[in-house]
C-alpha cells in the first residue's frame, strides 16, 4: 500500500448544487491528497462538471464547504487561482491566434510561470508553435488547452473530460502529459466516462451517479467491492435465448448475479472455473447453442453496471 500523504490538496464536504427543481450534486464529500490523482467517474448528467466547477470557484454551491490548497474561495480566490490550472469541458480558443500567442496570454496572468517552450515540449506541440488555433486538430486543440492549464505552474490541475472525443492515440498522449505532471509532484482531479482512463491515471476513483457518490476507493478496492472473480458474457445463437431462465442461471455454482442486455447475458461470478463448467453443462441440457462466450476480469465499468444497471457511456 502507498503511504498516505499528509496534506489535502482539495477537500469538499456535503456539497450540494440545485438548479431550480433539479439537484445536480446531492451531498458530495471529496478528498484529494497532495501528489495524487482522483478521478470522478460517472455517466452523462451525473454532476461531474457541476462538481468540478464548484471546486474551481466558477459555480457557487447551494450548500457545503470547499477547501482548495488549504484556502477558501471566499476571500482567497486570487491566491487559489494563482496555484491551480484548469481545463474546462469545452473551451474553443480564439481561432486567429497562434499556439504561442495563446500561451503567452495565459502566461501573463501568473506570478510563477513555466517557459512557453517548456510547456510546448511537455504537451508535444513544439512544431505547432506558430500555427493558428483554427488549423489545429481536435487532439492538438485539447493539448493546447492543457498547455494553457500548465503554463501557470499549477500545483493542482482540474481536468474536465480531457479525452472525450479523442482517438485512442490522442487519448494516450494526454494521459502521458498528465502522468508527467504527476511525477513532478502535481495533484490532479479529473472527470471522465472512461474507466480505462481512471484505471490508468487515478490513485483513487469516486463513482458518481445522479449527484451522489455510489462507490469510492482505489481502483482495485472499488473493483474488489464487486466481490467477483470475473465477468462472463455469453451470446446464445439466434432463437435459443428464451430457453435460458435467469433463475436457473442464478443457482449455478459461483454465479452471483445475472443481467440481460439485448440478446446477451452477463454473469457476475465468484468462481470462474466452477461457474463456467456448470454453465456449459446447463446450456447443453436446455439446448442453447453459443454464438460466443467471453470472460474478463471485472473493471470499473462492471462495478458501475452492477451498482446502477447503466453503462458509464453508451456504445
Amino acid at each position, binding site marked *: 500500500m502507498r503511504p498516505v500523504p499528509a496534506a489535502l490538496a482539495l477537500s469538499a464536504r456535503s456539497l450540494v448544487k440545485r438548479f431550480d427543481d433539479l439537484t445536480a450534486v446531492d451531498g458530495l464529500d471529496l478528498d484529494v491528497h497532495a501528489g495524487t490523482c482522483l478521478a470522478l467517474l460517472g455517466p452523462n448528467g451525473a454532476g461531474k462538471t457541476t462538481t468540478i466547477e464548484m471546486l474551481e470557484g*466558477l459555480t457557487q454551491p447551494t450548500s457545503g464547504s470547499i477547501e482548495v490548497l488549504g484556502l477558501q474561495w471566499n476571500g482567497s480566490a486570487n491566491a487559489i487561482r494563482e496555484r491551480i490550472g484548469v481545463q474546462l469541458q469545452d473551451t474553443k*480558443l480564439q481561432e486567429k491566434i497562434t499556439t504561442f500567442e495563446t500561451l503567452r496570454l495565459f502566461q*501573463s*496572468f*501568473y506570478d*510563477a510561470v513555466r517557459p512557453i517552450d517548456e510547456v510546448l515540449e511537455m504537451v508535444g506541440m513544439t512544431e505547432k508553435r506558430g500555427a493558428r488555433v483554427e488549423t489545429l486538430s481536435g487532439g492538438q486543440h485539447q493539448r493546447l488547452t492543457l498547455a494553457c492549464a500548465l503554463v501557470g505552474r499549477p500545483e493542482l490541475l482540474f481536468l474536465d473530460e480531457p479525452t472525450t472525443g479523442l482517438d485512442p492515440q490522442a487519448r494516450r498522449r494526454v494521459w502521458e502529459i498528465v502522468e508527467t505532471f504527476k511525477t513532478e509532484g502535481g495533484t490532479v482531479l479529473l472527470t471522465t466516462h472512461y474507466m480505462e482512463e481512471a484505471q490508468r491515471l487515478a490513485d483513487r476513483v469516486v463513482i458518481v451517479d445522479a449527484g451522489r457518490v455510489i462507490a469510492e476507493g482505489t481502483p482495485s478496492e472499488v473493483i474488489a467491492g464487486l466481490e467477483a472473480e470475473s465477468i462472463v458474457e455469453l451470446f446464445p445463437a439466434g432463437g435459443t435465448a428464451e430457453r435460458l431462465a435467469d433463475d436457473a442461471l442464478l443457482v449455478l455454482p459461483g454465479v452471483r448475479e445475472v443481467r440481460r442486455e439485448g440478446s446477451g447475458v452477463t454473469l457476475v461470478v465468484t468462481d470462474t472455473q466452477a461457474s463456467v463448467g456448470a454453465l456449459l453443462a446447463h446450456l447443453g441440457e436446455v439446448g442453447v447453442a453459443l454464438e460466443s462466450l467471453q470472460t474478463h476480469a471485472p473493471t470499473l465499468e462492471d462495478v458501475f453496471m452492477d451498482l446502477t444497471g447503466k453503462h458509464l457511456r453508451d456504445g
Partner: protein
Amino acid sequence: MASGHDVSRGASRQALRWKEVRELSRHRTLAFIRQPEAVFWVFAFPMVLAAVLGFAFQSGEPAKSHIALLEGAHANRLLERLTADERVELTRFPDVAAAERALRSGKVDLFLTDPAASPPALRLDPVRAEAESARLRVLVALGELDEDALALDTVEEKGSRYVDFLFPGLLGMNLMGTGLWAIGFAIAELRQRKILKRLLVTPMRKSSFLASFLVSRLFFLVLELVLLTAFGFWVLDVPLRGSIVLFALVSLLGATAFAGLGLLCASRVKTIEGVSGMLNLVMMPMWLGSGVFFSYERFPDAVQPLLRALPLTALNDALRELMLDGSGVRDILPEVLVLALWLVVPFVVALRVFRWS
C-alpha cells in the same frame, strides 16, 4: 508557494498587471486584424460609402427634372422653350396609362398633360420634393413664373454642400458601429467559446480585461479617425474649421460612450446571434433619427428632444459644429454633456449586470 515569490510581490504585481493588459490588448487587436472582413467593414466600407454618396451629391450640376409628355402632344413655341431648358429632361410616352405608371414609380417627376393651357395642366405627387422643383422649372420655362421671383442663391461654397453635411454624420455612424461591434461582438464571442469562463479561473484581474478592450479600441479609433478624416479632408474637400484637439476629444468621448453601450449590450447575451440582434436594435433608431443622411429636424417637434438625447445625435451635432461651423467648446457643451451621460450610465450598469460565466 515558495516565499521567494513574496519578497517583491508589490512591485511585481504592478508589472504583472501591465503585462496582462498588454497581452490581452494584443490578443484583442490580433484577433480583429486577422479577420479581413471585419477590417473591411470598419475601415473600407465607410470610406466607400462616403465616397459614393459624396461624389453622387457633390457635382456642381443640379439634378435634372424629369417631365413626362404624351407622344404627339403638338409642339408649339412654348414646348420648344421647355426643351431648351437644361434643367429639364422630357420623356415621351405613348399613352396616359404609361405616363401615369412612370409618375407613380418615380421615373418622372411630373406629367405635363396639357402644355398649351394657361396655366399648363400637370399632374404630380406633392409629397415628393422633386415634383415641386419640377413644377417650378416648368412654370419658369413656360413663362408662367418670373425667374427673378425665385431668386436662386446657389450653395456651392465649401462647407455647405450636402457632402459636408453628410461626412460628419458618416464619421459618427462609423464610431457608433465600430464601438458597439468591437466590444459587443467580441465579448459575446468570448462567452460563447467559453473563453470568458476560462479566463475567470486564472488570476487575471477583471479590470485588466475591461481595460484591454479600451486599449485596443483606442488603437483602432486613432487609425479610423485619421484615415477617415484625411479622406474627407483631402478627397471630399470637407473642412475642419474647429480645433483639431477638440475634434479628437469629442470623437474619443463618442467612441468610449459607444464602447460602454456595447459592453452593456453584451453583458448578458450568451450567443453571437443574440448580440447581433441586440446591437442592430440599438443602432436602428440612430441610423434614422440621428441626422446621418438627413437632418433629424425633419421629424415632428414632439420627438425632437428624444432624438437630441440619443448619443449619435449628440456626436453628429458636435462633429458638424466643429467641422463646419468651427465652434468652440462652449457651443458644443450640451452635446458633450449628453455624450458624457451616455458614457457613464451604460458603463456603470454594465459593470453591475455583467455575467462572466
